[in-house]
């Protein structure tokens, strides 16, 4: 029974005397151990990026994805347990599909985000369930108005709407950088790509394993559909970002 929770941390259906649900907090801890995952709402779309650790040199690049399409105009990036997040991804796809088959229109991002919040929250209510060890960033672009939106859903089931945010290990540093980046409200996804690559490389902890930058977007370049950022574009953005970081370091 030893430990921080003093016995109150074994189940999600028991509050601690000071009013906390430890299991949910531990789940949030699991997210903080994960590689950084960020998303930003640009003027013309949503851009996702993930710092994906290469667990082994033998791992095939481009595998174990951490950014997923939800439907044609929506996607999701993950921090935390990947296996847990798949549960949310497939639920999101089901909800989107079901909404479309009933209403013919695509599900409004707000509605889907709320539904995913409710879904996640359910796993914090019963002793027989374990909360999800992941936080997701859900982004979409309205196919008609082209208005982008971005939401964060955490293990507690909370839903936040953001202009840009980061989760995982480097979230603090990344968030400050995103704030600077988003000071320009007219920035496009294409312009932001280099900066996002720079943030990811800056935030990366040298002590950690090497990482692969995974990026996807929904923007005019991808015909307003969810798509992985083309490899050549990502490569040039990464190279440029590294140069910029090097130049900054030389200045100091």
């Amino acid at each position, binding site marked *: 029974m030893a430990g921080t929770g003093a016995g109150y941390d074994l189940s999600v259906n028991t509050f601690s005397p000071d009013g906390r649900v430890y299991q949910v907090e531990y789940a949030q801890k699991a997210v903080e151990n994960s590689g950084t995952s960020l998303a930003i709402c640009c003027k013309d779309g949503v851009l996702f990026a993930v710092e994906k650790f290469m667990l082994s040199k033998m791992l095939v690049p481009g595998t174990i*994805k951490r950014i*997923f*399409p939800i*439907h*044609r105009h929506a996607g999701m990036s993950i921090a935390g347990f990947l296996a847990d997040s798949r549960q949310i991804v497939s639920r999101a*796809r089901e909800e989107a*599909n079901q909404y479309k*088959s009933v209403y013919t229109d695509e599900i409004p991002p707000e509605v889907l985000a709320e539904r995913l919040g409710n879904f996640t929250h359910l796993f914090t209510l019963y002793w027989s369930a374990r909360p999800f060890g992941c936080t997701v960033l859900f982004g979409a672009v309205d196919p008609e108005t082209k208005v982008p939106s971005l939401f964060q859903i955490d293990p507690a089931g909370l839903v936040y709407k953001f202009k840009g945010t980061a989760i995982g290990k480097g979230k603090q540093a990344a968030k400050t950088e995103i704030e600077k980046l988003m000071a320009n409200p007219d920035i496009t996804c294409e312009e932001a790509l280099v900066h996002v690559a720079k943030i990811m490389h800056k935030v990366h902890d040298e002590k950690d394993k090497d990482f692969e930058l995974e990026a996807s977007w929904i923007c005019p370049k991808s015909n307003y*559909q969810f798509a*992985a950022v083309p490899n050549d574009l990502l490569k040039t953005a990464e190279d440029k970002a590294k140069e910029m970081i090097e130049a900054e370091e030389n200045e100091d």
Partner: protein
Amino acid sequence: MAPGQYSADPKRHTLQPIVTGATVVGMKYAGGVLLAADTMASYGSQARYKDVCRLKKVGNYTLLGASGEISDFQYIGDLLDELDMTDFLQEDGCHMGPQEYASYIGRVMYNRRSKMNPLYNQLIVAGKKESGESHLAFIDHQGTAFQEEFIATGFGAYLAMPILRNEWKPDISLEDAKKLAIKCLQVCFYRDCNAYFKIHVATCDGETQEISEPIAMDHYWGHSAWLKKSLEGGTLGVNESW
């Protein structure tokens, strides 16, 4: 209900279609496939809806054309859109083409007829995947499925097929194919009371997939023989014909 017992009012499935579309013609041409259908959706013999598109794009390489029950056609279209969505979510760059969709629809149609609850359509699935072969398939409400160089559904199976047999050639140009399709639908318009003079023409050549805006076909009803009033003691005798 217990085994051996039967309801006095048994469950009945669709026994006849309600809102229907008439002929669709489809043919291969040099470098692609073409579908054409008129814009009418009839309610029995009533000309109910005159601006309906009975052709549909599915994925990036496939066209679907339907005669018969319009709502069933829409339902099949939704099924295929869902399939295309699973392709999209897979993110592996693999997409189903006309062959896969035709096969899928064939299974759905046969499955439904085996449940004594058919989808009341005759469908043409046409398409071409990039530099692959052109594909043109027919599927009906019983699950009968075959591939052909040219196909006509509905009344067109009787009115348009002879014209296609006479005039279609392998490697017919797109322009000639379009003319031929229009000729077929013109004949259908003259003789099939559920047909209409406004049509859509859809093409797929592996790169682009297109459904035209409505096209109005020429038609002329002023022939003197057609204007004679046979009931008012005109010259047309009982055994005479124009």
